[in-house]
């Protein structure tokens, strides 16, 4: 029998994990067990994970555990991170679903949950970061691609008519390029954090360029509030890993920005 049964709701793996573990603390824990079950044990987990700052992440998981809580299938509390506990109603529901699913696959899934739900968050993090972060080569390749994107965008925005927004955007891109030049983060987790912040910012800038390239004069009319948030976050990341001090901090010494 095929495990993936269309009559089974998407959230079944969340209920299954909580049925095995009883209570689970932290969204990170839940997300990573689902991910490891999918990629290492080949359990057909119906969530798409993207590479985020803290490793693989699926927004749909969060949406589903909120729905489960609203439907009374799990108890959800927020302490130091989310605390998930299955309710009697949830336990009954998942056991009924399991009757339609492949027992071999469920056994494998249970073994995965047993292995990772008992390990500390610290162990899980270390394992995920070591095994599931991009290699050094992939990291350098992505960094080079992003640097090229930043330079291309900077040249494009420099051709726009002068406006307050243009000066600030070109300044942001110049800061990103300088940060790529100075970045020597050895730790792969920190490096990934840095790269994700840069990628998010550049993605925004790329979209902005696509929206304004046919009529560059509209740039001056736009509010760049969301972009400023992304740029501030990137600057905070640069400061955290001693790459470059932030432009927004008035006490930043000019020498540190120019050298």
């Amino acid at each position, binding site marked *: 029998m095929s495990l993936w049964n269309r009559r089974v709701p998407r959230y079944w793996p969340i209920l299954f994990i909580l049925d095995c573990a009883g209570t689970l603390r932290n969204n990170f824990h839940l997300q990573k067990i689902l991910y490891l079950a999918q990629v290492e044990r080949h359990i057909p987990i119906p969530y798409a994970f993207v590479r985020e700052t803290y490793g693989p992440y699926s927004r749909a998981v969060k949406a589903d555990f909120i729905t489960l809580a609203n439907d009374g299938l799990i108890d959800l509390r927020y302490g130091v991170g989310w605390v998930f506990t299955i309710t009697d109603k949830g336990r009954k529901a998942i056991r009924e679903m399991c009757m339609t699913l492949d027992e071999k696959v469920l056994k494998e899934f249970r073994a995965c949950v047993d292995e990772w739900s008992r390990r500390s968050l610290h162990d899980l993090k270390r394992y995920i970061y070591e095994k599931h972060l991009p290699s050094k080569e992939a990291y350098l390749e992505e960094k080079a691609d992003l640097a090229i994107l930043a330079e291309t965008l*900077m040249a494009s925005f420099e051709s726009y008519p002068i406006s307050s927004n243009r*000066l*600030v955007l070109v300044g*942001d891109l110049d800061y990103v390029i300088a940060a790529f030049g100075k970045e020597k983060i050895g730790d792969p987790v920190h490096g990934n954090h840095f790269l994700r912040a840069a990628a998010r910012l550049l993605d925004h800038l790329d979209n902005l360029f696509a929206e304004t390239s046919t009529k560059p004069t509209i740039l001056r009319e736009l509010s760049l509030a969301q972009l400023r948030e992304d740029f501030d976050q990137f600057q905070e990341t640069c400061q955290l890993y001693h790459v470059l001090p932030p*432009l*927004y901090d008035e006490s930043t*010494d*000019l*020498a540190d*920005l120019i050298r």
Partner: protein
Amino acid sequence: MKYGLGHAKIALLLDANCLIYYCQRFDETFQQTAVKLYHPLGERVIKAINSAIADGRCVGSTARVLAEIPDKGAEELIDDFLCNAGIRDALERHGISRVPPRVVGRWQDRFTQKFKKLRNREWFREISFVPSQKELEDARTFYRSLAGRPVMVEHIARKGKDCPSEEDLGLALCAKELQVPLLTNDGDFTRFVEDWGRFGVIIQPLT
């Protein structure tokens, strides 16, 4: 906050350049040494403002002039501030021969913040004044009546246009309406102070 003319206790109007010079003051440190990068005319604007607000009155400008300040400030930063001999000297003393775009962006950002702060000062007023088409046309007719004088011929040859912009004329007409001086360094006004006075606009040249 926006004010109509009826609410104004205004002592002085400021043109766009004055507002820009006021906001183009950047305090930096370079290798832990303080570096003051102030527009050379900024201090004179501050002096004029302080004198105008000394007795509890206010200074202000029209909403139309204020709306253009961020972008005009950006142009001024590139075309004037960064080319200014005093600013260049101050930078070169610290070995900075070229200001990278990230620092230009930092200054523009700071300029915008200073401008926002200025607009919220209790002694600053944003005036909702829109002149009628007839008033604008009268001002243009007056200005064109000065044509033919050597000073105007030279002025037009240098500036390349025969009339101040609509926003500058609107500001001058607001000053006329309020009967308060207009602080400006725009040659359209400062080269014809007496003539503008006869038209009813008091010009206070920023020199």
